[in-house]
């Protein structure tokens, strides 16, 4: 399987305390463990089971995902920050891999 590629969309600069939208997505097949391949062999479960967002080191959002989340998991939420800082995203795979992205947010 191709290496999962995380993507996020977030504004570069925001106003203090004003909510903005964060869109996140990672390419991942999210194998449920119940599917079979073309030859009828069971496909082992492999999903992104955890998604975490931190702002300046403090936990902003954490999501536990189950096999019922669609392939290429898409999660969107709003957040509001009081000061400039570093927004960090982390996706945890069943196989132990961690995919991460970070963005600087400037409060103007």
């Amino acid at each position, binding site marked *: 399987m191709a290496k999962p590629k995380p993507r996020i969309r977030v504004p570069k600069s925001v106003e203090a305390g004003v909510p903005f939208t964060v869109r996140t997505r990672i390419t991942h097949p999210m194998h*449920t463990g*119940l*599917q079979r391949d073309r030859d009828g062999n069971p496909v082992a479960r492999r999903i992104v089971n955890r998604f975490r967002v931190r702002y300046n080191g403090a936990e902003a959002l954490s999501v536990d995902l189950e096999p*019922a989340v*669609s392939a290429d998991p898409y999660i969107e939420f709003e957040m509001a920050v009081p000061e400039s800082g570093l927004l960090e995203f982390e996706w945890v795979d069943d196989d132990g891999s961690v995919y991460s992205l970070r963005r600087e947010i400037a409060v103007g």
Partner: protein
Amino acid sequence: MAPTRRDILRIGGAAAAAALFPAGAARASNGVSQAVAAFTGGAPVLEAGVRLEVPEIADNGGAVPVRVVAEGARRIALFTDGNPYPRVATFSFGPLVPPAAKIRIRLAKSQNVIAVAEMADGTFRKTSRAVAVTVGGCA
């Protein structure tokens, strides 16, 4: 009058269908009530204060958009009552993120999506929505 061959087939067919699909099997057959109880710790759950936006009809069960909002919640869990496994996703919100989120989920067939919120005061609230699925996603 002796039963005709047609009668026997009809009765036999109905009996077979009843055996395969017992009444109410769509509800809780995947253990959704136990899964919700595991989230709430068995606490009472009020039917209020949670907004769940899902399409009434989903053409593609493989990616059904869901939006959930629960003002004052610190955690929100999504469940389904007709997928092989009842749990879908659990969100934990920090102080910078208002308790609302959008996610895309798999629905194997037409069924109910249930959102349960744990409020900041430790009480629980929920709501549910039925979704008709045209082509099931392999959930």
